[in-house]
């Protein structure tokens, strides 16, 4: 058996679906015992990543789609937000692929605000990949006490 449950949401890259994805993640997080405050953190962090993807795809004629993947473990949630909505100029893309340049990714996400800063602050681990669009990976752990309570509930 896989060590985690996987749930994937695919939504059009439009503002009206950010809240839908946010509430789905909120529901998933509550299943593995996150506290109310941690769920609020998850909602903000995932909204920031999805909003970022929406804003970069928003002016494209075909709109594009955003994929939100959630891996649910007993003690943590991993959320991946991928923006593959944009079509690419091959040469331009080729230049961008290559050695991972953190400074460049940060610049890319920082335009327009505090989004990445909030993701980094509210999540436990964050990784950003810039290859055929932007992909944000983020992890949040359930507080230890909560995990024990959960295990007890399941075993009893």
């Amino acid at each position, binding site marked *: 058996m896989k060590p985690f449950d996987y749930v994937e949401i695919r939504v059009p890259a439009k503002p009206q679906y950010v809240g839908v994805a946010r509430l789905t993640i909120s529901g998933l997080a509550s299943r593995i015992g996150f506290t109310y405050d941690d769920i609020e953190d998850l909602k903000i962090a995932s909204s*920031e990543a999805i*909003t970022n993807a929406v804003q970069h795809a928003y002016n494209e004629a075909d709109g594009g789609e955003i994929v939100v993947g959630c891996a649910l473990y007993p003690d943590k949630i991993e959320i991946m937000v991928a923006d593959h909505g944009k079509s690419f100029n091959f040469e331009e893309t080729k230049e961008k692929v290559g050695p991972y340049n953190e400074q460049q990714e940060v610049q890319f996400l920082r335009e327009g605000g505090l989004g990445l800063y*909030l993701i980094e602050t509210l999540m436990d681990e964050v990784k950003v990949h810039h290859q055929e669009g932007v992909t944000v990976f983020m992890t949040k752990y359930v507080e230890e006490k909560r995990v024990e309570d959960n295990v007890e509930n399941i075993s009893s």
Partner: protein
Amino acid sequence: MSEYKKWKKFMNGVYLMNIEVVLKEEENFLKAFIGGEIDVLTAPILREKLTSVQLKEGMHAELNLSDVSYMDSTGLGVIVAFFKNINAKNGHVKLTGLSARLKRLFDITGLGEIMDIETDVKVEKNYETI
């Protein structure tokens, strides 16, 4: 046509917006009651409402956020822009009715130190609903 009008025309009747903004203007004083969810979908509504305010020299503005159930950086961006505009006119902005959650959002972004914020002591009841 303004961005907001274009956007509203596109959205009208299609999606239910969970945001409410009520403005009360009186001479040099502005009071705004803001409620609902402020995210990438609804922040343009708040921005449009706040930019519709006629800025006056030395204006006092109060944004009451006690009915805000969700807010992220899109909302912070609109509030910061408003704060800058009022400050440029030597005015003052006060944020009131913030839940502990909302206050934390301002604090972790460093805005809590820059802005005049009054928190709400009442029991928190704001949960975002589906």
